[in-house]
């Protein structure tokens, strides 16, 4: 007979050891996000129909849906999307690629670090929207000033996340590269940049979200078409349905870029557990 059963047959008080581990480990649950979103919409719909949400407080979700549908049907959606997407893509491409380059330089060279980190720290907290008039003077009222605004807005967070990521690259891997006689350029290309990629990509999520925020700001001045222009127009007329239709498009854009980065992460960072 085993010890365990022996112990149980005796007249000692016996209790099960209570489980006290577990938790603190959130896992992805499929579809929950969607359910929360739909539930929220249903509550608002119900509220606006029942009347305990005034129609000046929030527009009816179904009305917003209809506005969106009409916008898509008339072809106006694409008229507004196309310039906005171009601005976002060109601006953030400029900002992000420059930001990664400067971030890697700061991560690798003492002088670049000493000289540029304070500069980036000084640029980061400036609300870029405040600089829009300045950009209009510098780059004209056309597209260039909009690109510049979005580029500057995505540049600073990208620099900060990139040099942080380069700092976190395992130094023993770099020593290994040196010990095998790899050239400086090989070490940067094959060890530093891939090692920093996880950090760069997660920084990119923040940068692109800021890019979308600035898109609206950029379209405040001298833009006839664009999602931002559409929202601002609706806002100044207190047309809440249109306003919310525009906001929905921006949110969708945010979700789309974020999941796009998620896709890139899954493809490029397969080596992570």
């Amino acid at each position, binding site marked *: 007979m085993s010890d365990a059963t022996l112990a149980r047959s005796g007249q000692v008080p016996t209790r099960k050891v209570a489980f006290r581990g577990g938790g603190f480990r959130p896992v992805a649950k499929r579809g929950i996000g969607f359910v929360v979103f739909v539930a929220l919409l249903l509550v608002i719909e119900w509220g606006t129909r029942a009347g305990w949400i005034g129609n000046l407080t929030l527009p009816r979700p179904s009305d917003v849906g209809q506005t969106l549908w009409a916008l898509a049907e008339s072809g106006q959606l694409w008229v507004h999307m196309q310039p906005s997407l171009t601005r976002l893509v060109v601006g953030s491409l400029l900002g992000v690629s420059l930001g990664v380059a400067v971030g890697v330089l700061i991560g690798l060279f003492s002088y670049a670090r000493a000289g540029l980190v304070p500069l980036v720290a000084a640029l980061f907290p400036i609300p870029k929207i405040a600089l829009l008039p300045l950009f209009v003077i510098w780059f004209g009222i056309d597209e260039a000033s909009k690109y510049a605004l979005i580029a500057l807005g995505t540049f600073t967070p990208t620099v900060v996340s990139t040099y942080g990521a380069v700092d976190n690259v395992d130094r023993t891997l770099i*020593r290994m590269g*040196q*010990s*095998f006689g*790899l050239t400086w350029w090989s070490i940067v290309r*094959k060890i530093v940049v*891939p090692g920093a990629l996880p950090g760069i990509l997660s920084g990119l999520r923040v940068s692109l979200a800021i890019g979308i925020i600035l898109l609206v700001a950029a379209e405040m001045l001298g833009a006839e078409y664009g999602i931002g222009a559409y929202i601002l127009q609706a806002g100044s007329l207190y047309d809440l349905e249109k306003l919310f239709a525009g906001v929905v498009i921006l949110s969708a854009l945010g979700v789309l870029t974020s999941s796009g980065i998620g896709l890139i992460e899954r493809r490029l960072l397969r*080596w992570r557990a």
Partner: protein
Amino acid sequence: MKLALEQITHHYAGLPVLEDISLSIPAGEILCIIGPSGCGKSTLLRLIGGLERPDFGQVLQLGEPPEGCLNPLTYVFQDFALLPWRSVGGNISLVLEDHGIRGRQADEIIEDVLARTKLSDFRKALPRQLSGGMKQRVAIARALAVKPAVMLLDEPLSALDAQTRELLMDDLLALWTRQPFSGVYVTHNLAEAVRLGHRIAVLSRRPGKVREIIEIDLPLEERHHGHARLDEVQAHLWSLMKQEAMAADQELLDV
């Protein structure tokens, strides 16, 4: 090719770590360096391979490295230092690419070194899929790929469990018997030192000085567990190191 260390002295932030170390590493022999923790063994190894510059003294390379040698002084690190984003094959090709070896020629070298380290089936695996022992074998394969004149092994078995360590020790012995290489093997494990070292340099605690160099005149292939001569040497090593280790243990760390 021989290596000679001449009166190497080194400091870290004013604190002497190595003092007047002179050693020679003849071709085809393995020199083990042992000493209590913090005596500067690993620093010494980094100095030998040129990853750090000594304050005084020099490391000399006597004679030319053998034909076909891509990287004369090649390390095997304690923590393997494999690129996690490259497969086993990719980690080896990394050190060949810079020498312009690609395609067929690289393939042949990779196949060969993987076969020698019994890793042929794992060429496409990623480091995270491998056990510690396998990772270190990949690192050894990578070192073999550049045909080193001297292998610099920095506690290569210390991150592994006891059984794996035993298996890998056998592999290292087999590699050496098939094709003798020169090596510097840093360890704090006396049993490893007497199994693999033709000569064993015992360092004192910080600042590290050479206390004694012991030669073991028993061929590597005849060394196995419980060999009387090896036990004798190991006991002697322990008697040398015990006082040092105890004293080193009592020191406050302020580096």
